[in-house]
């Protein structure tokens, strides 16, 4: 089922679970979109236009027994599930707001007894549901019930590094979950948080992890920046974040990992992308918080992203103000700036350009 949302430039159109397009008015008409009053306004660029979320992250529980040192939500074994009815009401709002994807998280979502029903509810509203799990609580029967999800992403932070980084050895749980999901025909991605311990001196830990999960059947690897939120907002962050030497390795590592690799918006400033126009054409719009992205926490409160509440405007200070990459990075991750620089509106202190200034 095609889902579309008129914008002044034309429309966002989801043509299938894996393809969301921004199209001009001519092509939008061919998809049956009527722009109405929006098309009587002058067309605005993609970056300025995307002020309503394309994707909403919804926490379904704050319960998780893993107790990971760096849990960004501070999830706990005695955390609470959000009731189905409350989640359904949130999904109604998400759908009415014109979003396309709803990404469920936690806590550990697999522990929520009504997760399959939640996915069906999202589908009924025309949304594309995805979910991220550590694999805890997953069995064959549960995996079979997840067929309404467009993709299930399993978190795996390293074959050897997992236990060191998280204080919980979940590598085996994650690999078992990947195998179970693949066996049941569920599309699997793998979320990998990039840490100093995973990359080591030469990045080999990341490449070996990618090879391992691909051999198990994962079709996509999602690389994430380690963010100092929740329990990760501590001094330990400085021991787990990537070193400048490791950041310099990233382009080479990405080149070895394609195809089938994605990065999150917080990683954009760490890469020495020069082709800004090309990135804009490909929908890269920097920090998405409060623009193309919003989040609803387990209490039902809306936030700009899963990691931060409040104002997430980009920095206006140099070197960001005149940086040629600003359009695609928007000053980097506000969560990192707040924790490391003590000012969420400061330029991302781990950006190579900021460090060099």
């Amino acid at each position, binding site marked *: 089922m*095609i889902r579309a949302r008129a914008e002044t*430039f*034309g429309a966002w*159109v989801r*043509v*299938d*679970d*894996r*393809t*969301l*397009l*921004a*199209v001009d008015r*001519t*092509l939008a008409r*061919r*998809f*049956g979109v009527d722009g109405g009053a929006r098309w009587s306004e002058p067309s605005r660029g993609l970056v300025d236009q995307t002020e309503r979320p*394309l*994707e909403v*992250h919804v926490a379904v529980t704050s319960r998780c027994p893993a107790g990971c040192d760096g849990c960004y939500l501070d999830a706990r074994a005695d955390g609470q599930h959000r009731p189905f009815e409350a989640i359904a009401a949130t999904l109604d709002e998400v759908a009415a707001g014109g979003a396309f*994807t709803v*990404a*469920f*998280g936690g806590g550990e979502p697999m522990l929520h007894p009504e997760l399959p029903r939640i996915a069906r509810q999202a589908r009924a509203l025309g949304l*594309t549901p*995805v*979910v*991220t799990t550590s694999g805890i609580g997953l069995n064959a029967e549960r995996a079979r019930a997840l067929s309404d999800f*467009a*993709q299930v*992403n399993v978190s795996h932070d390293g074959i050897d590094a997992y236990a060191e980084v998280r204080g919980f050895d979940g590598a085996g749980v994650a690999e078992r979950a990947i195998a179970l999901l693949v066996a049941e025909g569920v*599309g699997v*991605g793998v*979320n990998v948080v990039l840490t100093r311990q995973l990359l080591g001196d030469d990045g080999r830990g990341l490449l070996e992890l990618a090879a391992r999960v691909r051999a198990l059947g994962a079709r*996509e690897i*999602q690389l*994430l920046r380690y963010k100092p939120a929740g329990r990760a907002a501590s001094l330990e962050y400085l021991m787990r974040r990537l070193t400048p030497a490791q950041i310099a390795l990233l382009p080479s590592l*990405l*080149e070895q990992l*394609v*195809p*089938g690799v*994605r*990065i*999150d*918006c*917080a990683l*954009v400033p760490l890469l020495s992308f020069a*082709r800004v126009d*090309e*990135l*804009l*054409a*490909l*929908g*890269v719009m920097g920090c*998405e918080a409060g623009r193309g*992205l919003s989040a609803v926490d387990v209490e039902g409160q809306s936030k700009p*992203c899963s990691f931060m509440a409040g104002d997430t405007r980009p920095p206006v200070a140099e070197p960001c103000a005149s940086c040629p990459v600003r359009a695609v990075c928007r000053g980097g991750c506000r969560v990192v700036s707040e924790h490391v620089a003590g000012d969420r509106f400061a330029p991302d202190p781990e950006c190579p350009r900021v460090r060099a200034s």
Partner: protein
Amino acid sequence: MDDEQPQLPEGVLAVRAGPGANCSSIGSVIDLLFGTAVLASVVYAAIAAALPDPEDKK
């Protein structure tokens, strides 16, 4: 990196590939930046499959 620009179908301003993953992600942009042209052909096919059949309007 490959210096070739990705060729998107006419009328397509931007493409975000992949279903998302509970972390804001930039899709298969990385694949394209490193010279994998697969995505463009996937987009063509997805559009062709999704567009209403002109015969249906008659």
